[in-house]
């Protein structure tokens, strides 16, 4: 009897200790990272040319910019985890990741729950069609057609709002299909299972350049001007870390390195505000 009670007491103490360890994060996350000499970063490496896998390494505009910013903390090792996009923000919330370095569109819902950095690129949504499908000349021409986008993305939200607008204008609504990653949507578009894909102009510009025989852009945005940014937790402990990344991105912009990276990965530059996180429009 006594030994069983002792066991129960020890287990409860151990559980309490674990909870205490989890909640004792009053220390700034930036300090913790510097002392542990390691930062755990979440990325969805299925978003060319922002971040994608090549020969087993995560490469792209995002990783290049991240390495530039983190060069101010040279002793810190980056542990970058490649997970599906739907696990990115939940993983940040459960402290699985310290910070997110993946192109996340700034939306109202996300801005209320998480802390965005200043933008790294333009995320305004446009439509992609098959090159052979010349009939789709304007965004309105996809009324009544099948359009795909990524589940949980702001581009999907923009597509759904566009469909609602078409319906309000008396046109047929869009049949929206959701995919785990944009690559799957592109493949279905090429295979003929979709008529169009809603994705950010920056991604589409590069895609239509490298695969001009398969894909073409439908000129015209289908939503308001939006931006991609990186994300941290919206608590006091993460604030210095978000500030650190903001300083790094602003420095890259003022030194011209940001434009250089944009030219390297996209072939064009984008206008992004540096003084503050822009108000979300979606």
């Amino acid at each position, binding site marked *: 009897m006594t030994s069983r009670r002792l066991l129960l007491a020890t287990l409860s103490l151990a559980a309490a200790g674990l909870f205490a360890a989890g909640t004792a994060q009053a220390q700034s996350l930036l300090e913790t990272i510097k002392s542990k000499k390691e930062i755990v970063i979440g990325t969805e490496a299925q978003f060319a040319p922002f971040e994608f896998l090549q020969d087993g390494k995560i490469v792209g505009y995002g990783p290049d910019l991240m390495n530039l910013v983190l060069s101010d903390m040279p002793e810190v090792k980056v542990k970058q985890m*490649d997970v599906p996009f739907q696990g990115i923000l939940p993983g940040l919330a459960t402290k699985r990741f310290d910070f997110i370095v993946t192109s996340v569109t700034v939306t109202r819902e996300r801005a209320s729950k998480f802390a965005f950095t200043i933008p790294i690129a333009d995320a305004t949504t446009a439509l992609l069609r098959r090159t052979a499908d010349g009939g789709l000349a304007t965004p309105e021409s996809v009324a009544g057609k099948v359009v795909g986008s990524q589940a949980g993305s702001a581009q999907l939200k923009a597509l759904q709002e566009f469909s609602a607008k078409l319906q309000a204008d008396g046109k047929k609504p869009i049949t929206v299909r959701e995919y785990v990653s944009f690559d799957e949507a592109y493949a279905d578009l090429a295979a003929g299972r979709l008529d169009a894909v809603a994705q950010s102009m920056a991604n589409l510009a590069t895609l239509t350049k490298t695969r001009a025989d398969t894909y073409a852009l439908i000129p015209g945005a289908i939503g308001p001007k939006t931006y991609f940014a990186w994300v941290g937790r919206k608590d006091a402990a993460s604030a210095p870390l978000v500030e650190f990344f903001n300083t790094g991105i602003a420095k890259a912009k003022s030194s011209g390195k940001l434009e250089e990276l944009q030219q390297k990965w996209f072939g064009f530059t984008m206008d992004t505000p540096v003084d503050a996180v822009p108000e979300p429009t979606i």
Partner: protein
Amino acid sequence: MNADGLLERLTAYFPVMLQGAGITMLVSSLAIIVGLALGACLLGMSLANRGTGPLTWAVTVYVSFFRGTPLLVQLLMAFYLPSAFGWDMPPLLVAILVMGLNSAAFQCQILRAGLAAIPAGQIAAAYSFGMPQRKVFWNIQLPQLARAVWPAVVSEFMDVVKNSAIISVIAVADLARVTRQIFAANYRPLEVFLSAGVMYLLLTGAVFALGSWVGRRLQHRGGRGRRIGLAATGASHV
């Protein structure tokens, strides 16, 4: 389709896929070992106290949970939940652990089916000699029942390799993830996914070959022992 181009592309995929296959085999082989060892332990635990008592109940709950929930859900829970309590487990470790725990539940039930192959008289005789239950399980029951259900055990090994194809959702760069990235770069689903299929076939084939070799060794050892055992007890049936 350009045949020369095809061969070039296949040779280009091969080293990248081999890297992914290496991770797949690392996770799978460790998960297989954990699964078999833990599965045997679970069976032993559930047989304690002649099948009554808290251990049996605990094993039942464990097996129901791991067989009754999808592996994907188990992986995601084990990857995202611990960090909420301040634990930090590397994804590779999480993958090996969860796949091992999952396989153990199935191996426990597979091995349990082999219990019927052991003549009841042996157990009675062992207990009458005063052997403790643990010794009876590990020295008398387990070797014989493992021999009896070995093909099903090897089949579960192969299932572990195939199930490992979803560990990329928790940041492990296995063969399936590498394949998807090659596909995202060149949009040739037939040859890319066929190559991946062939690779998985080779991996499961290797597991099957190794497992069958072990099975033959078990039969060989068991055969002689069984004859001696039967002769000693004077059993009239074979």
